[in-house]
């Protein structure tokens, strides 16, 4: 490993000694485990959808992992101010692209979420998640630091615009995650406790409304509540995979669930992990995700920069929520919802956006001396 002298004042030297190396290590470990699991889970998927090269998804994943790491490291070099600017720029571009998908997007399974650029498909809503979390944190902190600036109102307005774009696509999973993160940030920023309850109620009403008026949501939730109501094929197979794996798993590559689950390399990769690597590995994975979130929380707990606290919390909650939804779906703790397992699942846009988001977390949790504003 390259070492840097404590007194090294170069950009990399300063970065190395100020960055949260435990956090960095945890993310690197997640990336490594993700690559291993995709190598195990994706060849049957490639075979099933008729791709000649059985390692197609592995190659694609590695191809996206390199820029994702580059983005993460690059972004982690930024100062909080730089993070804010990058997020703002990203937010504006991603928001425009989200609205662009409504016009030029490719419709897949009834939703317009993707924009095809030669050689690459981009899902702009993935990028809006971390960007909006940072922008919202900035607005909330501004209302404290610059008295007179209506931060909360602007934040509400931007939230509304973002929601409209996501609902029109429609992308309910993303809508839910963005809403939950924004709401938590609002809560952290000192939202009146009565309003916390009121908005919480509104969120539940929103979910209930989706259940009543969106047929595919109705069906998903019904199937979750009553396992005999309809086709629970994916979840049933997933639960069988965990049972089959047991304490130590069947061994890497020895599982069978990947042959029967369509999304075994993405939404149900956790089931492949459960079957092939077993309970101990899965518990380690859960602990690793929890570590990343709580470690970040601890780093910013005593930070004097209000923006840093809100932005880091928002980014980490988004990261943790996404992991929890993915693992909860595979374990039949909640209705199935297409959501990638951060850094583990296959998914190009998701990986780049995660690199961007985690880069910002690393940037914000770096040790700073003196006021940075």
């Amino acid at each position, binding site marked *: 490993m390259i070492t840097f002298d404590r007194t090294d004042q170069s950009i990399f030297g300063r970065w190395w000694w100020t960055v949260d190396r435990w956090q960095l290590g945890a993310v690197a470990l997640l990336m490594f485990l993700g690559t291993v699991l995709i190598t195990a889970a994706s060849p049957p998927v490639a075979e099933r959808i008729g791709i000649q090269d059985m390692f197609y998804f592995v190659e694609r994943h590695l191809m996206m992992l390199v820029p994702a790491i580059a983005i993460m490291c690059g972004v982690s070099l930024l100062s909080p101010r730089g993070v804010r600017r990058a997020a703002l720029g990203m937010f504006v571009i991603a928001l425009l692209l989200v609205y662009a998908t409504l016009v030029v997007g490719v419709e897949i399974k009834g939703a317009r979420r993707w924009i095809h650029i030669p050689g690459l498909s981009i899902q702009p809503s993935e990028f809006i998640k971390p960007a909006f979390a940072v922008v919202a944190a900035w607005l*909330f902190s501004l*209302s*404290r*630091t610059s*008295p*007179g600036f*209506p*931060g*909360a*109102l602007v934040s509400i307005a931007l939230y509304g615009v973002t929601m409209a774009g996501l609902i029109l696509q429609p992308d309910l999973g993303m809508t839910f995650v963005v809403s939950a993160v924004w709401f*938590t940030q609002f*809560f*952290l*920023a*000192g*939202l*009146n*406790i009565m*309003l916390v309850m009121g908005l919480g109620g509104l969120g539940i009403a929103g979910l209930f409304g989706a259940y009543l008026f969106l047929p595919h949501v109705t069906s998903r939730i019904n199937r979750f509540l009553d*396992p005999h109501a309809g086709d629970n094929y994916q979840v*049933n197979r997933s*639960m*069988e995979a*965990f*049972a089959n*794996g*047991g*304490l130590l798993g069947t061994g890497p590559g020895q599982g069978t669930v990947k042959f029967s689950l369509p999304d075994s390399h993405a939404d149900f990769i956790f089931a492949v992990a*459960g079957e092939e690597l*077993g*309970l101990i590995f*899965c*518990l380690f994975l*859960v*602990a690793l*995700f*929890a570590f990343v*979130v*709580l470690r970040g*929380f601890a780093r*910013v*707990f*005593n930070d*004097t920069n*209000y923006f840093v*606290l*809100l932005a880091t*919390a928002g980014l980490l*909650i988004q990261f*943790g929520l996404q992991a*929890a939804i993915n*693992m*909860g779906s595979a*374990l*039949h*703790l909640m209705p199935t919802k297409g959501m990638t397992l951060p850094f583990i699942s296959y998914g190009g846009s998701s990986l780049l956006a995660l690199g961007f988001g985690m880069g910002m977390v690393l940037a914000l949790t770096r040790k700073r001396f003196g006021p940075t504003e």
Partner: protein
Amino acid sequence: MKFPPFGLPFRSQSASTAPAPRTTLAAAMEQSRYRLMVTAAVVTTVFATIGVKLVAATLFSQGGEPRQHHALELDSTTTNRADIVDRNGNLLATSLVTQSLYADPKLISRPEEAARKLVSALPELDYKEVYGKLSGDKRFVWLKRNLTPKQQYAVHRLGVPGISFEREERRFYPAGNLTSHVVGFTGVDNNGLAGLEQGFSKRLNEDPATPLQLSIDLRLQHVLRKELTATIQEFSAIGAAGIVYDVRTGEVMAMTSLPDFDPQDPTGLNPDTLFNRATLGVYEMGSTFKIFNSALALDSGKIRVSDTFDAVHPIKIGRFTINDYHSLHRALTVAEVFQHSSNLGSVRMVQLIGIAAQRAFMAKMGFMRPTALELPENGWPLAPNPWREVNSMTISFGHGISVSPMHTVAAAASVINGGVFHPPTILRRQPGAEIPGEQVVSRQTSDMMRRMFRFVVADGTGKSAGVKGYVVGGKTGTADKQKGRHYQKNSRMSSFLGAFPMHDPRYIVYVLVDEPKATAKTYGYATGGWVAAPAVGRIIKQIGPLLDVPTVDENAPEILNATFLNAAGSTNWAQQAPNAPSSAAPPPPKGSTVASFPTPAKPR
């Protein structure tokens, strides 16, 4: 501290009224840190929940959610014909879905090639016949019915155009030969052609969902058939019939006629194997008929069991002479007439009763028409008309009237069960349902008949049917067979009608052996007592436990009270010396039991 609407400052005026910005920010950050801890607690809880569920799903899921088996869904199992099951629900007949192969010759352009291919896939087909069918100008020809899935696959693989499959059903008989005469069989279009399949054909097709439950018990059926087969082999007989019968309900518990057949493939068989000796065959029953003669005599009130009859002097009527083969040369009581099966005694008894009363009694016993049994194979008895004196005499010892074994068993049941005649049935009577019945003899008569049955096995021609503990009783029968107008000396029907337990009769076991040949072991005899009685004993020994009949001490006072009878006609066992039962009339040695068997005077 008073919070503005959202809890955080919106406008400049709120800032102007609030404390200094630095303090506001510090307070806000303090609150945010507190709330961040709450959030961290929630995050920890969520991940802990996932961990717990992970442990549950991985290690403890076996008992929780049953694994779903994604089995191939077969064609729905509903068929158009009901199953037939035994009294315990064992499957005796069921329908399987099969595919039948047919062709539309108009669509076949090259019949030679098609025929050649079909014969290669189904070697049992004949090339010339198939070619003839395929080159005809009909629009529909059957090529083969009821293909197995393997055969269907082989034909599919040929890729011959113009041939097709039609869903059909085929009857399948899991018990095979064991119940062949009971269940019968169906033709290629599933219409019943014999047995219950014929008798209940309409019912089976109209209510396919409800199985037809029989009174037959497959286990008893097996014992019966096994012992009959052994008896046929031992005595080189040409056939046999057997019935196990519930005397309290009239249910046929087992019924076999040998030789039998495979109901799966009854075509091309010897008609003899399709003939049901137990219900369709009518025979002169010989001495077993003395059961009814004795019941008639006792029930008339004119004759008591201790009354004696002349068994010394032959009776001449017209050109016939009736005699006892081995006469004891003395007068015999009614009990002794039954015990030694004396023809002369029997005739003298009925002479006292009268012809009309005898005829009326035989009608009450059901010997004038087919039994109520639900099988289409239900024989008409051959009864004399007019019923003359000579007929009356021969009928008293079982000749001159032919009835089926089922007739005999049903009537004998009424004689020993307290006097109630139940119509025989092969369908299971539902528990609690009323059993039809008619009082045909008095309870006292029935009580005495039970003692006479027991007397024959305890000390008479039926000793070899005895099974320790089951208090068996019964009556032997041997009848020479008539061929043309004459009786054959060495061609006879030997039978034994056994019942148990005699203190409280529950079941009759009847065995009839057709043309048994004597063996060295039987000292040249092939009579009912030598051939059929041992078989009945072996059957009772095996089925007694299956029928839950408790064994008892046959010499216990309460059993003797209910079953004792001696040669003098006394039922008081306490007066007898230890060897008493044999003191009144020394029993002949075993070989001489035949002496009292009905031996028609020539030509009789």
